[in-house]
C-alpha cells in the first residue's frame, strides 16, 4: 500500500500509539509552533525540576507531553521528541537535533523532514518559555 512505503513501521507505530500524548497541568514551559498554513501545529509541555546529577544540581526535564495537529509524521515526530528528552538535562535535550528525531523514527520521507524540524523548534520554544 502507498502509505506503507511513504512511512516506515516505526512512524506508523508512533502515529497509532503516540507516547506522552496530552497536556501537563501547571507546566514549567509550553511551546507552540507551526500554523495551519503549513498544515502542522505542535504544542510541547515540559515539567522541569532541579535535580542532583553527577554534574551538580541541574534542571532536568522530568516530564514532557505533546499535542499535535498535523500529518502522521508530525504526530510521530512530536511523540518521539518527548520520549527522547524525558529525563534529560536541558543541556542534553538541546543537543538533540531534528535529524536525530527523524533517525529515531527510522527516517522520514523528504517532504516530511520539516516535521522533525518543527519538533525541535517546539522544544526550543518551550525552554524559552520556561526561562522567562
Amino acid at each position: 500500500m502507498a502509505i506503507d512505503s511513504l512511512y516506515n513501521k516505526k512512524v506508523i507505530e508512533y502515529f497509532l500509539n503516540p507516547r506522552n500524548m496530552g497536556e501537563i497541568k501547571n507546566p514549567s514551559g509550553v511551546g507552540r509552533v507551526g500554523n495551519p498554513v503549513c498544515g502542522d501545529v505542535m504544542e510541547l509541555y515540559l515539567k522541569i525540576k532541579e535535580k542532583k546529577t553527577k554534574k551538580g544540581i541541574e534542571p532536568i526535564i522530568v516530564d514532557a507531553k505533546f499535542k499535535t495537529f498535523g500529518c502522521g509524521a508530525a504526530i510521530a515526530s512530536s511523540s518521539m521528541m518527548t520520549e527522547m528528552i524525558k529525563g534529560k538535562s536541558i543541556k542534553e535535550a538541546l543537543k538533540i537535533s531534528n535529524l536525530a528525531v527523524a533517525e529515531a523514527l527510522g527516517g522520514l520521507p523528504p517532504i516530511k523532514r520539516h516535521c522533525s524540524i518543527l519538533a525541535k523548534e517546539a522544544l526550543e520554544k518551550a525552554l524559552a518559555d520556561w526561562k522567562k
Partner: protein
Amino acid sequence: MRVYLDYAATTPVRKEVLEAMLPFFSDDFGNPSSIHVWGQRARKAIDESRAEIAKFLGCQSEEIIFTGSGSEADNLAIKGLLNSYIVKRLNSDQSKSEKQINNLTNQQFNKPHIITSAFEHHAVLKSCEDLEKKGLATVTYIRPNKEGIIEQEKIKKAIRLNTVLVSIMYVNNEIGTIQPIREIGKMIESVNRSRSTRIYFHTDAVQATEYLPMNVDYLHVDMLTIAGHKIGAPKGVGLLYIRKGTPIRAIIHGGEQEKGLRAGTENVPYIVGLTKAIDLIKNANLKNLRDCFIERIIKEIPEVYLNGSKTFRAPHIVNFYFKNIEGESIVLGLDLEGIACSTGSACTSQALEPSHVIMSIFNDHFRAAGSVRFSLSKLTTKRELDFAIEKIKEIVARLREISPYTKEKNGN
C-alpha cells in the same frame, strides 16, 4: 475488510472493457495509418469507436479528438485555442507596417482574455497560468460561492471585448459540486449573438461523464473533456470534443493523426476500451447511498461539515471538513484500517500545498487542512459505507484527542 472510496482518483478497469481491448494488442495490432489490411482493421476500430462516442455526446464523429489523458485534452482545448489566436495575430501584424502597429490602440492590441474558475483542475489552471506567464493571454479566475458553485452572472460580468474562451468544469473533482454548464453555455451563446468575435466555451467533464447529461448541444459547449480512467477504462486515454468551426491548433506536432490536432500513432486498444466504458454507462443510483453516508457522518460525528452544496452535487463525490484535525492523518489512519480516501485530489496530495479548491471557497487554511474526500461508484455497497463510518468515527475521535485545538476538559 478493504473499502475503496477513492473512485474520483481512479476506477478499476471493467472486465468487459479489458476484454474489448485485448484483441488490439497482439492480434489486430496494425497502425491505423497503414494502407494494408492490418492497418485498415485498426482504422476501422477507431472509426467505429469515434462513431459510437459521437452518439453518446450527440455530435459528429470528426468532432472527437482522442488524447492520452484528460489533462492533455484540457491542455489542447486551452493552449490549442489560444495558439490559433496568437498565430492569427502574428500573421496580421506582419502585414501591417511598423508605423501602423505603433498606431494600434491598446484595446486593439489587447491579449486574448480567458475566463475560468479558481477551483478548476490543475490541468486547466496551470495551462492558463502558463499562457499568462508567457504574456500570451490574460486570465480572470472566478471564485466559487460558499456552496461551491460558479455563478453564471459572475462569468457574464467578467466578459470583455477580447474574451475568447470560458473554461468551467462540469463537476468539481474535490468537492463534487455540479456547475451550471448549460446555463453558462446558453448565456455565452446569447452574448455571442451581439458581438463580432466569438467566445468559445470549454468544460472539463471528467467527473461528470458517468452521471450527468453529456449531450454537447444540450450543454451548449464548444469543447468538452473526458478521461478514460475515471469511468472504468484504463489510464492513458482521454478525448476532447471540439465543435466544428472552433479555431484550434495542435500542441503536439508530428503526423496527421486526429485531423492533425494530435500527432502520435493512435492508441487503438485504449480508444476501444474508452468506447466500451462509455457504452457501458448506465445511470447508477448512488444518490441514496451517498445521502445516507452524508447524513450519518454529520449526525454521528460532532463538528463535521459538508463542503459544497448538498443539492447540486454529483452522486459519487462527498467532501467533509473535520474540525480541529488534519486531513492527511485521517487518510493515513483510514488506510491503516483498509479504507482508501484522499485529501484534496490525488494530483495534489504529493504537494504540501493546501487544497486550492477549499481555499477558493472558504479562504480558510484550517478548513483546507482538515478536509477529506470520499468518492463512491456503483461498486460501493452499504456494508462498505457502514464499515467506513465506524472507522471514521474512531479515527476522528482519536486524532481529536491528540489535537491541541481540543483542550482537555480539566486542563488549564
